[in-house]
């Protein structure tokens, strides 16, 4: 596709064959991502600075800045303090430590490298996990004077937990132990003893002095007894091909590509495997199957596509696929489930709480979920399994059970990072609070793939000539939710719509009669109501729900349960005092008398919606007028046109 026809460049950019060859070689370099693990004292920043400096990635102006900074804050006397090349943020430069994940770049003739530089202090486990999540090889730094330390074990464990298969142990500061072969061998033995259980495919050991450059780029002259490769050569030659391309095909759908009525494609990055035109695929979790019609890219149509490529696939059949689905090989499918066992690294000051509603963010989909049990915690210092308990603090690691409100398709993390990874997001603060690795399904029926149901939500809704939706009325007791909802329902009914009202009267006496009015019970009440509302919209109905539903988080959870179904939050904004004056059921009087506990607005809070779709200020209006406002909103936004 040539979109730049008017910009003539070809004639000016003809080139000599020699340089063409060079550019071609540059283009065809391999690619590897590294992680460095070690503390400030192990000389980690110095090693990275050395790699950049020795591979000529440092420019003259940076070098003069380095000379200036070395004199000002350096720790190496007259020599250049290479660590200063790396320590970026002003705050940490003053403290003399690195505090976050930084990414550095260098290249050799064979490969291009990205180094994730992460600090080694215990409180920064989360940073190391972040860097490790995308790395192919980890460099574990050990100070030759101090040998294998607790932190060495900690780092190696996190590296293994995050699925890095290759490790090189850099035994640094050999200059301070007289370049002793004995020290090197002791450390090697100690490391191998404990790393046995960590499941690495390769472990290398290199004695070096990053400060002096021994065994970094060049073979050390002072350590003739070491016959292995220097670090840079090790990077260049290590075979890290994980064979993802030979694994079964998986593509999480990111975006549905619909430029016009004649084209419907599914865009995504291939997580594993290869796909060819004509291959049979299954869309999960729906289990519908089809065949690949075309593999479309800007650079033309492809016959096949491979792991890591970002493509757009069109199918022979029109089946309902949306963002969050996974396209997979028909014969070899991922597991579909709504309950998993996973390893969790907690990354937030606020501890994890069992059964608290969180958001689980997979590569292409966000699903509400709860941790229902902690099987065990891991002491990352000695890898001992500890009793579970019911919370998880910052930087703690645990094997947990996770219940999701929606089914997901996954592969175990050790087989596919893309298909087995997730982060946990806090609903209120939106912070990323944990990283997780799915290990197995907890649902024994999960490998029984659902028969795709041909009568789906859309079919049922179109039989009714309407669009399903949830109208979620919230407000104080006596604010007029039910009165207004009843009027809205009458008006909708008169237009031929099929509706249903869910309120305390029809839910509290049956479905939820086991629930009281404590915060926990209110939350469970609303959870069940939202599930029922979701089922009813699946049946094609327009649902009107009338509950005080005082907590923002629970209303948000209800919205998420309903997924893509339009969820219209209607805030019946009647002031508390007005409600108390009206007191249609005499409840306020009883509450004032102390006969009712946990009464919303008195001894239990009401969190008003921040951005409701509809806000109804009732004072000064008749219920009829207010109901018309709701109908008008539905009309204006196209909910009532079939």
């Amino acid at each position, binding site marked *: 596709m*040539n979109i730049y026809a008017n910009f003539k460049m070809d004639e000016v*950019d003809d080139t000599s064959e020699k340089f063409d060859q060079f550019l071609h070689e540059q283009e065809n370099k391999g690619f590897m991502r590294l992680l460095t693990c070690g503390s400030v004292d192990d000389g980690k920043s110095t090693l990275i600075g050395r790699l950049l400096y020795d591979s000529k990635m440092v420019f003259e102006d940076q070098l003069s800045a380095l000379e200036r900074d070395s004199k000002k804050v350096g720790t190496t006397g007259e020599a250049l303090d290479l660590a200063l090349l790396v320590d970026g*943020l002003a705050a940490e*430069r003053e403290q003399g430590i690195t505090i976050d994940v930084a*990414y550095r770049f260098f290249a050799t003739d064979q490969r291009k490298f990205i180094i994730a530089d992460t600090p080694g202090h215990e409180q920064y486990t989360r940073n190391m996990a972040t860097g490790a999540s995308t790395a192919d090889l980890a460099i574990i730094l050990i100070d030759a004077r101090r040998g294998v330390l607790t932190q060495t074990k900690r780092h190696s464990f996190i590296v293994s937990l995050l699925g890095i298969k290759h490790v090189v142990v850099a035994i640094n500061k050999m200059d301070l132990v007289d370049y002793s072969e004995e020290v090197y061998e002791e450390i090697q033995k100690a490391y191998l003893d404990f790393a046995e259980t960590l499941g690495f495919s390769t472990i290398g050991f290199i004695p070096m002095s990053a400060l002096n450059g021994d065994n970094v780029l060049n073979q050390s002259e002072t350590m003739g007894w070491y016959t292995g490769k220097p670090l840079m050569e090790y990077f260049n030659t290590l075979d890290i091909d994980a064979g993802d391309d030979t694994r079964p095909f998986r593509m999480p759908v990111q975006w549905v590509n619909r430029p016009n009525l004649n084209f419907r494609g599914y865009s995504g990055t291939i997580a594993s495997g290869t796909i060819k035109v004509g291959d049979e695929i299954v869309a999960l979790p729906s289990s519908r199957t089809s065949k690949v019609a075309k593999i479309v890219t800007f*650079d033309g149509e492809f016959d096949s596509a491979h*792991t890591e490529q970002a493509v757009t696939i069109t199918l022979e059949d029109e089946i309902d696929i949306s963002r969050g689905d996974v396209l997979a090989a028909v014969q070899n499918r991922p597991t579909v489930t709504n309950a998993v066992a996973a390893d969790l690294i907690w990354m937030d000051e606020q501890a994890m709480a069992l059964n608290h509603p969180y958001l689980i*963010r997979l590569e292409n989909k966000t699903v509400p979920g709860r941790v229902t049990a902690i099987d065990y915690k891991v002491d990352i210092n000695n890898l001992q399994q500890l009793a579970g308990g019911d919370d998880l603090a910052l930087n703690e690691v645990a094997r947990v059970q996770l219940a999701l409100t929606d089914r997901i398709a996954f592969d175990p993390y050790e087989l596919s990072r893309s298909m087995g990874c997730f982060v946990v997001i806090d609903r209120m603060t939106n912070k990323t609070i944990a990283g997780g690795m799915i290990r197995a399904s907890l649902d024994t029926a999960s490998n029984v793939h659902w028969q795709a149901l041909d009568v789906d939500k859309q079919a049922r809704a179109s039989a009714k000539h309407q669009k399903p939706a949830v109208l979620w009325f919230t407000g104080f007791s006596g604010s007029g939710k039910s009165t207004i909802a009843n009027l809205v329902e009458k008006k909708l009914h008169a237009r031929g719509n099929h509706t249903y009202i869910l309120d305390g009267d029809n839910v509290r006496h049956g479905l939820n009669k086991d629930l009281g009015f404590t915060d926990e019970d209110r939350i469970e009440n609303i959870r069940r109501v939202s599930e029922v509302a979701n089922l009813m919209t699946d049946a094609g109905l327009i649902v009107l729900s009338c509950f005080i539903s005082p907590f923002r988080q629970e209303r948000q959870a209800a919205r998420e349960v309903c997924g893509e179904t339009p969820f219209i939050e209607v805030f019946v904004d009647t002031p508390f005092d007005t409600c108390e004056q009206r007191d249609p059921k005499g409840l306020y009087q009883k509450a004032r008398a102390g006969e009712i506990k946990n009464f919303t607005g008195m001894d239990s809070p009401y969190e008003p919606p921040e951005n409701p779709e509809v806000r109804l200020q009732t004072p000064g209006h008749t219920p009829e007028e207010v109901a018309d406002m709701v109908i008008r909103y539905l009309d204006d936004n196209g909910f009532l046109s079939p």
Partner: protein
Amino acid sequence: MSGLTHLERLEAESIHIIREVAAECRNPVMLYSIGKDSSVLLHLAMKAFYPSLPPFPIMHVDTTWKFREMIEFRDRLAKDLGLDMIVHINQEGVEQGIGPFSHGSAVHTDVMKTQALKQALSKYQFDAAFGGARRDEEKSRAKERIFSFRDANHRWDPKNQRPELWRTYNNRIHKGESMRVFPLSNWTELDVWQYIYREDIPIVPLYRAKVRPVVERDGALIMVDDDRFDLKPGEVIQEKRVRFRTLGCYPLTGAVESDAETLPEIIEEMLLSTTSERQGRVIDQDHGASMEQKKQEGYF
């Protein structure tokens, strides 16, 4: 590691990021600075959604002091590609007559670039803005996330960034907050040039050597791009064969003497070069952590 080359991997990663934003954010925008990194970013967006056009507008924050050739290039490209290009200028700054010659680089950049950008993001209520920044450009950029959270005042807090693992990008924000998204985070300057060459991406002709009128000022060669240039006593306009390694406001962008006209020559020159690319930008040279301060204040 798969069989893809590093450029193919970088391209796929960037496309993935761009698609995530389109799928998840309510009202994203792509910031376009007309420079080579922007050219690559826009090209990747064209690729990511093909055969659709990018499902978001492109926006240029115009300080009114860009090289004339940049503006011509911008307008032609937007027209040819059929893109929705928003051009935002800080009118208050224009009314106050703010400019680099009269007010100095710091005030000019703050009012016409930093403040203008914040104005535009607030005006259109964008919840996510793509930028072309790379981690290899500058030390403080090396720690920036790909999805970088900004509070309601557009501020970046380097000590309180969200952990970013795998490709599970967390783009959730509250009302008024926003995301800056950097799809080129893992590219280096050489990658950008190689990709431009491989994909035949048009770049502003100012990157190519040509005889141009320049004035030597504080050790930098500043091009006389229009009659607003305030020639100081003793300064002489010279005709020199120069090109630009980076583009910005013409009074703040130093040229380098060069014969590199074609892309291979430019790449060759870059590889042999001993100074890093941002040296041409006057604002980075103040003191050690100046870029980091600018970013905390909302500069991209």
